[in-house]
């Protein structure tokens, strides 16, 4: 297998960044976050945010306009010619989450042109998870430390080196373009074995089998009231979630010109569904928390054919009051018995 010494990783990425937009984890102040490569990379920590921002940026311009409705308008806002995206060091949960986002943005009658153009030529390099955190429960969703779904290259990490296993044509292309940095030989057998054996401490407590069907009859269950009582109504869980994708569209007028943007939005915000006339179908935190988890564990299954959760545990780390996918799955299971 082709491999690279960890010392040389930075030079590989620096080289890669001339023809790719590299999205990787790096230390930012007190945390490790995914972001565009700026000369540093952190291959150890699991970033607090997900890599969805590489394809669905938190804020992006849809167009710039000049003029006014009264005097006439012109819109400009082409979107092309960008370098392809390289996700460098997704985790198996991240890679799998991208395949779920693909179902939302690429399938059906309306594909999203911006998402598609970023995603089309992207390469996702995923590293096997040797030390899952206390918050990891990907195995509940059929993912594991060595899962390859959604990845173009899979990387095995031992003490000194990273071993590259290309999985797709795109992945092979990426590896081929960086042969100068890679040495031939060796198979990280023990790492492979370690990944197969890696245990997730939460695995025994989380159970999703039959959850979607069970929730069909739980829309009016009192458990939602109980779960949502502690919710603070912020959007941390949704913004850091690798499979949440809701957005809003808004204008920023500046006299006779301006922009239209789209930005992430969160179903946990009170005005998410507030209509012009003042009607709000989800007026309290109960409805909003229910929407979040029903979307993940019931609506998503009906619409996208799978749970919209990959067990990455980011909401567990994000929530300051312990209301997250794992606690929800646990509470719902108890309530649905």
């Amino acid at each position, binding site marked *: 297998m082709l491999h690279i010494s960890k010392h040389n990783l930075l030079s590989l990425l620096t080289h890669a960044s001339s023809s790719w937009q590299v999205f990787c984890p790096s230390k930012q102040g007190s945390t490790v976050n995914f972001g565009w490569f700026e000369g540093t990379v952190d291959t150890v920590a699991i970033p607090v945010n997900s890599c969805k921002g590489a394809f669905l940026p938190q804020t992006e311009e849809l167009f710039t306009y000049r003029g006014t409705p009264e005097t006439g308008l012109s819109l400009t806002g082409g979107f092309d010619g960008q370098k392809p995206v390289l996700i460098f060091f997704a985790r198996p949960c991240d890679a799998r989450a991208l395949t779920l986002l693909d179902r939302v943005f690429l399938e059906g009658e309306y594909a999203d042109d911006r998402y598609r153009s970023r995603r089309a030529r992207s390469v996702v390099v995923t590293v096997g998870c040797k030390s899952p955190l206390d918050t990891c429960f990907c195995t509940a969703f059929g993912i594991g430390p060595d899962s390859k779904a959604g990845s173009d290259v899979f990387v095995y990490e031992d003490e000194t080196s990273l071993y590259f296993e290309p999985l797709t044509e795109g992945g092979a292309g990426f590896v081929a373009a960086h042969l100068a940095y890679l040495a031939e030989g060796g198979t990280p057998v023990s790492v492979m074995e370690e990944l197969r054996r890696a245990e997730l401490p939460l695995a025994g407590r989380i159970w999703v089998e039959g959850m979607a069907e069970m929730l069909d009859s739980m829309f009016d269950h009192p458990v939602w009231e109980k779960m949502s009582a*502690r919710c*603070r109504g912020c959007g941390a869980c949704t913004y850091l979630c690798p499979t949440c994708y809701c957005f809003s569209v808004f204008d920023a007028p500046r006299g006779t010109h301006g922009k239209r943007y789209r930005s992430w939005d969160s179903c946990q915000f009170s005005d998410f569904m507030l209509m012009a006339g003042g009607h709000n179908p989800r007026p309290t935190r109960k409805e909003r928390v229910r929407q979040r988890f029903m979307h993940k564990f019931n609506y998503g299954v009906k619409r996208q054919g799978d749970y919209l959760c990959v067990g990455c545990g980011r909401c567990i780390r994000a929530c*300051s009051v*312990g209301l997250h996918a794992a*606690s929800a799955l646990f509470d719902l299971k108890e309530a649905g018995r």
Partner: protein
Amino acid sequence: MNDLREQLKEAVASAFSQGRVRSFVCLERGFYPFATMPAILHSGSDADRVEIGLADAPLLAKYLLDMPKPAGIVVRSCDALGVSRLIRDRRVKREDLYIISISCPGVVDTAKIPMSMHRITALEKAGDALIVHTALGPTELPWSSVLLDRCLACVSGAASTDADVVLDDGRGKPPAPVDYSEIDEVEHMAPDERYAMWEKEFAKCIRCFACRNACPACSCRKCSLDLPEPEWLSRAVILPEQFMFHFTRAYHVAGRCVGCGECERACPVGLPLMKLNRKFTRDIETLFGVDDARIPRDVEVLGTFLPDDPEEFC
């Protein structure tokens, strides 16, 4: 510690049985058995769920806003300041509250337990140490090395006296003065360096409003930042708007921040929000001769003035 918990359970149960409260906010065991989370109780029979909160204990004051009154609350001294804040901001009435104050030895921040010690099964305080139980056996860490940042500027570990029931086991953490050296560091930077530092920090902000929603001084029913019109803050998460947001948030709580640090604890991306809040706190203390600006007062620092306030403008 257990004694305190037993006393607390009893006090909560009797608040219900005496008809003093219709609801009670306290901590209960979280999804992770060693951490706690907020619980809103509606009957005395739930009092068994009450926990003291050794680790990752959220502050509870703000839950009072939406609870059926009269409402009960269990507070540590830092949380008591938040309650006091809400009372002075006329969000809740003191006579609608039933306050049980407890002493507090500090609260563990599980994020400060080294990664290598994960797979925690239980946490235990033993004297000046935290014992972390994992599958591999117990490890001792110095108590002071694992406390939440807010405990490092503890207003008082003793139970607050403005309470209907005071439960103090005498093991409260000694108060610690606010350490302003972090503020000094920032002030000593060159302006461009300072700007670059904040730019980098604010670039991480995802605008989830966890800080605002956790803050006992941010208690408006409808935040002006959520209004589409006038648009004080656009939804665009771009740097100028990040400065706008963080300036507005910090300025809005200037003179009212109780220093509880719950904003910083709630921030999922680790922004040093107290570095912003404390800058105001310190300037208010030095410019207006206020002693410990964290303590809520009947008259807001920025809701009043003195004729001989410093005159820098001409």
